[in-house]
Structures are given as structure tokens and as C-alpha cells.
């Protein structure tokens, strides 16, 4: 064991947890004021629900043993045998530190989906969805990519910090839920505006800060690989934010605050799978691609009439695909031990594309089936009157902003 590595991983786990409140504010500012608490709550409840599912069986299914390359076993249910030493995993940190770090990823991934279903999903349906999803979708994918399953071990696709497991997974699941739910009342007809962009900008800053733990922590040590991931993360986020507002200024005439915040998040998403495998200049290209392409992708929901309320698909699915695929071009052996197409290994690009397709098909199908079962049993949506009067009052009997005390 290494105390420096352990200190960094414990710190990183706390940084990643900090992203979930950040995400809550990022999303909370973008909904109408009558739905702000319901939005915050849908993020925070992931901390509660996924803690329970992950401690009971989720972690074990993802990281304990391997059954045919597709799922782990239940030997570590209840996190039993997860102790003070590094006896189970080949890392230089205690098994409990590794479990804690992975734990935080399992929490924020379903929380990302909340933006797509904002302002209309029932709280009970959401809580049950993320509980089931974290076991049936997240845990298997984490196993396939990181836990010794077939994507990492056989296909040899690479994903440093969760382009496949976190962002493409959450993005395509968001699309499945959007289709099952249908659009909000007034989508494309009424003015549905963000109620407090300062909250959104604050949340984006918290996400950016926490993302250093997300990406650099994924080196699982206080190492050069961590420092490289730290550096590429900053570069991609800053470049993507800049490119996004340039695209806005060119197409709409004005750069926007929401655009800068969104661009930063898109860049952070795109560099996530690549951060430990590519160099600084490649991070510039990946960031630029994320800034321009995610901005372009915003228009798709209007074309298809999918009310992806806070653009989870455009930012996380599209951004994740950009990162996972460009990684197949820009990966360098001297950085992360794997070469991409531009460094003499064209097969890596094909592996990356295959891993993206597998992730999308698996996550979409299972997420959609879970959503349809919930729709047919307890129902997914609040009533029309509850939706119009706002979810804060109708679901939680609270108000986010009261006029006077």
C-alpha cells in the first residue's frame, strides 16, 4: 500500500461526491422556480438510494470476480471482506478506498439522467428507476469496462474515467426515459426558461472542481498519470467552453452565460474517457470538438420532438461519444500504455467504436424496459394539474423561493 496514493484517492472520492450537489444546482437553476426543489431532490436522492443498492450488491456485481465476462459475483455483497488492506484488488490503496471511490461514480451516473426527465417525472418512479438501474445497467457496464468483463478484457476498448460507463450510459438512458415519459406540457409552445442561472453557473463550477477528482482520481494513485489527467481535464473544459460561446456568438449573435457553463461541462464529459490516455494538444482538439458538436446537437431534440429538458443527450451522450471515439485516434502509449490510430494502432479506433455501440444498445434497451414496466405499474408522470402547479408543492409540499417570511 502507498499512503500518498491512498490520500489522493480518499480526496478524489470526496471531490466526486461534491459533483452531485454541483449537478443538483446546475440542473436546479435551469428549471422553472416551481420545480427547483424537486430537481435538487432528484439528484440528492441518488446519494441515498444508490448507497443502499451499491453497498448491498452493486459493488460486488461490478468488481468481485467474473462470470463469463458479463457480470461479477456476489461474494462481496454488503461490502463484506472490504477491509483496511489491499488484499482483494491489485491497487496500492486500501480496498475500502477503492470501493469508496467507485461508489461515488455509481451515485452521480444515475443523477445525470435527472436533467432529461425534469419537471414531470414522479418522485417514486424516479427513486425506483435509479435503484433498479444502478443494479441492472450501471453495475454490469462497470464490470464490462473496469471490472474484468468483456469490453475491457476481451475487446480491449479503453475508458479512463467513465466515457462509456458514466456519460454514454447516462445519456442514452436519458433518451430512453424521455421517450417513455413524453414531453412536458407546453414543450415548444410555451416559454420554458431557466429560473436562476447563477445557481447553474455555481453548479457548473462545483462540477468542474469535482471533476479533477473524477478524472485524475481514476489513475488510482498520486502519479504522473493522475497529473496528466488533471492537465487534460482542465484544457478540454476550458477549450470547450470557449468554443461553445464562439458558436453561439456566430449563430445567435450573443455569447451566453449558460453557454459557457454548458460548454465547460461538455468538455469535461468528452475528456473523461481520454484524460489518462492523451496529451495536452489532443485535449485541445477533443475540447474543441465537444464545444462545437455538443452545441450543434442541441437542435436535435426539437427536430425529433424529444423533450430532453436539460439536454442530457446533447451534453453527455454526444460528449461521451466524442471522447470515447477520439480517444481511438489520439491515445499515446507513452502516456497511458495504448496507441490510437494517429500513433500507429488503427484497431484501437474500431475497438472504441464497438464499445460505444455495445454500451448504447445495452443501456437503451434495459433502461427503456425498466421505464415501460414502471409506466405500466405505478406510472411515470405526475398528473396534469400537479405538473402545472409545480412539482415542489405537488410532490414535496415545499417551496424553493418564498416571497416573504
Amino acid at each position, binding site marked *: 500500500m502507498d499512503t500518498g496514493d491512498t490520500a489522493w484517492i480518499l480526496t478524489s472520492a470526496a471531490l466526486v461526491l461534491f459533483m452531485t450537489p454541483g449537478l443538483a444546482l446546475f440542473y436546479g437553476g435551469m428549471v422553472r422556480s416551481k420545480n427547483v426543489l424537486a430537481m435538487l431532490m432528484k439528484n440528492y436522492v441518488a446519494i441515498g438510494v444508490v448507497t443502499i443498492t451499491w453497498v448491498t450488491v452493486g459493488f460486488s456485481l461490478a468488481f468481485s470476480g467474473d462470470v463469463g465476462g458479463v457480470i461479477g459475483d456476489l461474494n462481496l455483497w454488503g461490502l463484506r471482506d472490504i477491509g483496511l488492506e489491499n488484499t482483494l484488488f491489485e491497487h496500492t490503496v486500501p480496498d475500502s478506498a477503492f470501493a469508496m471511490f467507485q461508489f461515488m461514480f455509481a451515485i452521480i451516473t444515475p443523477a445525470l439522467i435527472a436533467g432529461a426527465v425534469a419537471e414531470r417525472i414522479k418522485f417514486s418512479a424516479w427513486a425506483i428507476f435509479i435503484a433498479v438501474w444502478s443494479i441492472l445497467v450501471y453495475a454490469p457496464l462497470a464490470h464490462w469496462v473496469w471490472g474484468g468483463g468483456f469490453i475491457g478484457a476481451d475487446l480491449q476498448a479503453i475508458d479512463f474515467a467513465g466515457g462509456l460507463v458514466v456519460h454514454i450510459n447516462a445519456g442514452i438512458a436519458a433518451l430512453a426515459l424521455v421517450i417513455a415519459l413524453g414531453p412536458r406540457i407546453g414543450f415548444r409552445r410555451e*416559454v420554458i*426558461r*431557466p429560473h436562476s442561472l447563477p445557481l447553474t453557473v455555481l453548479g457548473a463550477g462545483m462540477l468542474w472542481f469535482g471533476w479533477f477528482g473524477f478524472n485524475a482520481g481514476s489513475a488510482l494513485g498520486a502519479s504522473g498519470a493522475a497529473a496528466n489527467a488533471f492537465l487534460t481535464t482542465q484544457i478540454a473544459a476550458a477549450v470547450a467552453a470557449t468554443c461553445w460561446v464562439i458558436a*453561439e456568438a456566430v*449563430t*445567435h449573435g*450573443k455569447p*451566453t452565460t*449558460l*453557454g459557457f457553463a*454548458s460548454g465547460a461541462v461538455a468538455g469535461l464529459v468528452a475528456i473523461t474517457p481520454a484524460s489518462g490516455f492523451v496529451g495536452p494538444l489532443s485535449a485541445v482538439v477533443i475540447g474543441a470538438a465537444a464545444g462545437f458538436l455538443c*452545441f450543434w446537437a*442541441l*437542435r436535435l431534440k*426539437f427536430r425529433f420532438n424529444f423533450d430532453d429538458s436539460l*439536454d442530457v443527450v446533447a451534453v453527455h451522450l454526444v460528449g461521451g461519444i466524442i471522447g470515447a471515439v477520439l480517444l481511438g485516434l489520439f491515445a499515446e502509449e507513452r502516456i497511458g500504455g495504448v496507441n490510437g490510430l494517429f500513433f500507429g494502432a488503427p484497431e484501437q479506433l474500431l475497438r472504441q467504436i464497438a464499445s460505444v455501440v455495445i454500451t448504447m444498445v445495452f443501456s437503451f434497451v434495459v433502461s427503456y424496459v425498466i421505464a415501460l414496466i414502471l409506466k405500466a405499474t405505478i406510472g411515470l408522470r405526475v398528473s396534469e394539474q400537479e405538473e402545472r402547479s409545480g412539482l415542489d408543492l405537488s410532490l414535496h409540499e415545499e417551496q424553493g423561493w418564498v416571497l416573504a417570511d
Partner: protein
Amino acid sequence: MKLIVAYINPFKLDEIRDALKETGVTGLSAGNVQGFGRQAGHTETYRGAEYEVDFVPKVRIEVLVDDTLAPNVISTIEQTARTGSIGDGKIAVLPVEDVIRIRTGERGRDAL
């Protein structure tokens, strides 16, 4: 007694308050409101989607004055709030039946 209600541009509030103090007005209420009149709304853009927003932010001020003071207060607001552009606002003058100072129970002009 009169209640003078004026809908003004928000950036004119401080100037109008100072000008009204000069006229002898002893109190004033103000609040943020949104409304529309002849002034067109504006466009807001969020993540590339453009929305036409009809409501324009304005400030509503309310002043209770004695009849003798009313003409001067009205002309002061009118002159101070005017920029000559569309959206300068409106002033309404309402008759007031009675005024009560809650603390003392004084009524009418004594309560102003």
C-alpha cells in the same frame, strides 16, 4: 387625497425618489413588476433556443398625497421618468376615501 400609481423604468427609480423628496412627499412604496404595453417584448436565448418574452420588467411606485400636493408630484414623476423612448411607463391617479396610520389610529390627512 390621491393615490398616485406610476409604472416606470427600473433604472429611473432612484432619480424619481430623490425628485419626489424635494416636492415634500413623506413616503413611497415601490415593487418590481412585469408587464406589457406598447413596448414590444424581447428575445431570450437559452442553449440555442430563442424565446419571445412579452413581459418587460418595470417598477411600480405608489404615493399617497394630499390633493394640494398631487399636481406637483404627478408632474415631477412625469418629467423625471421621461426619456422620450417607448416604454417610459404610465401614471394613474386614484381618489382615496380614507387613510389610516396603523400605529396611532390617525385618519385622513393627519395620517399622510
